[in-house]
């Protein structure tokens, strides 16, 4: 802190003025909004650094974590969903559905703890927490992000696999699928080339909606693995009563959610021209 218990009232007042705390809350809020519009996120009281710098530093952990988790989610969900649809009403389908029901019920932080128990405590293949940093190259950094990304992806994939399965089942009932099969294409070729592309619209929509969960999941998982990302920054800021940092990070997350959903809408229109026509 900047002042100790022996500070004079004058020093206190000077600091209040310097930090803008002598202004009424609406003025301070308006200043913060005006700063946001100029790209100025303000100054952290506890770290005595611009908040933008803090966020940029922590993004080096959170952004790759979210990207790797998103990649895992997509791969696992598409593979499991298409597999289940192809084995509709058979054992494989029931297995995938049971697995996804289970995946939706398991809290991501508990799954993360279980992963640590098995792969860090028992097998010692991966670090139990912390971040190796990017200075020694990508391998150690990605190694410390692998378990967190798996923990984050598991729940998301459980939901997305269900959506993929029902979307694929829906498309498989269409006439053009029968036509493609009649043309002599194999089941597999029809599935991956024709069905999946058409099934992507609901899948992408849900992926956009899931992004909010991915972000909040990242906050929790960072805490489990003690990863110095944005999530951990927020917790430190809450402990330090560094309100501006919390405010900025929360706004950043919310803005990211809106931006991603907007991007998904654009992508959907590009993927399926019928959607664009429907809005006119």
């Amino acid at each position, binding site marked *: 802190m900047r002042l100790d218990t022996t500070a004079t009232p004058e020093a206190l007042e000077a600091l209040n003025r310097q930090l803008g705390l002598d202004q009424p809350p609406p003025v301070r809020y308006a200043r913060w909004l005006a700063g946001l519009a100029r790209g100025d996120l303000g100054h952290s009281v506890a770290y005595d650094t611009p908040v933008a710098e803090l966020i940029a530093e922590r993004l080096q952990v959170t952004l790759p974590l979210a990207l790797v988790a998103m990649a895992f989610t997509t791969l696992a969900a598409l593979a499991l969903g298409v597999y289940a649809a192809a084995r509709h009403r058979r054992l494989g389908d029931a297995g995938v*559905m049971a697995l996804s*029901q*289970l995946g*939706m*019920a*398991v*809290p*991501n*932080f*508990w799954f993360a*703890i*279980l992963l*640590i*128990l098995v792969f860090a*405590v028992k097998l010692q293949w991966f670090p*139990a927490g912390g971040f190796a940093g990017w200075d020694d190259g990508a391998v150690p950094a990605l190694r410390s992000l692998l378990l967190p990304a798996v923990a984050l992806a598991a729940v998301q994939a459980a939901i997305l696999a269900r959506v993929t399965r*029902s979307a694929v*089942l829906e498309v498989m009932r269409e006439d053009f699928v029968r036509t493609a099969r009649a043309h002599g294409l194999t089941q597999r070729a029809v599935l991956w080339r024709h069905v999946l592309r058409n099934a992507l619209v609901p899948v992408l929509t849900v992926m956009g909606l899931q992004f*909010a*969960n991915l*972000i*909040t999941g990242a*906050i*929790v998982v960072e*805490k*489990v693995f003690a990863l110095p990302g944005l999530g951990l920054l*927020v*917790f430190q*800021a*809450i402990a330090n*009563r560094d*309100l501006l940092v*919390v*405010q900025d990070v*929360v706004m950043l*997350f*919310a*803005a990211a*959610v*809106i931006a991603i959903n907007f991007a998904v809408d654009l992508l959907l229109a590009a993927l399926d021209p019928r959607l664009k026509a429907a809005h006119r």
Partner: protein
Amino acid sequence: MRRHPSFVAGGVLVALWLTAVLVSLAWTPYPPAEIDIPNKLLLPSAAHWLGTDSLGRDIASLLLAGARTSLLVGVAAVGLGALSGTALGLLAAARRGWLDELLMRCADFSFAFPALLTALMLAALYGPGVSTAVAAIGLFNLAVFARISRSAAGAVWSRDFVLAARACGRNRLQITRDHVLPNIAAVLIVQATIQFAVAILAEAALSYLGLGVRPPQPSWGRMLNEAQEFMFQAPQLALYPGIAIALSVLGLNLLGDGLRDLLDPRLARER
């Protein structure tokens, strides 16, 4: 009943969870907050069925009492969100116009703030605690129920029998009460069951992060937080609370799916 296995399985799990809550009100093997350092980190035995934690507290008692916390937070948060959200959704559907637009845009806006982000903001402002958790989860539920009841009620308002009721001179309030609400009740009940599962997960996550219920009130999420510190000495501690959370959430999700099939066969999804 045999044709609704998920309803039965979910019902059984939820009944187990509710039984745990009821039992914990009358009896727990030990007082859940009782600290007994000499008997810390015990393995399961006849005296302590699931062993003890790092402070010598009885795990079985903590789990039973934790069920109570999850129910309490769930009922408060979902109840708050469902009541106020449904009221706003019904109002938007009945009034239409600018009020409808305004309420729905607000709901859109609040979807960008998941419960955890709201809880972070509230915790930074007012400090963590059970009311922070309830308010954050409740606010999120408010938006969910406002949207669902708005779209379901909108569909009812366009039906012929509503037109007939209007022709008979019933006002909007009477139509909402007598025709719209009974027709969307099934949808709301199913959604409430599923949101309950979401609320339990959120409460556990918030308590794990230290933003939920405060000690000594027991919570499954905080038990996991404490277990993580002793992962090398007593890995079994990290299992029980997680299993309790997963089973109650699984039960509520299955019950919600089953209820949807039972209450609205038209909505039953292809399985």
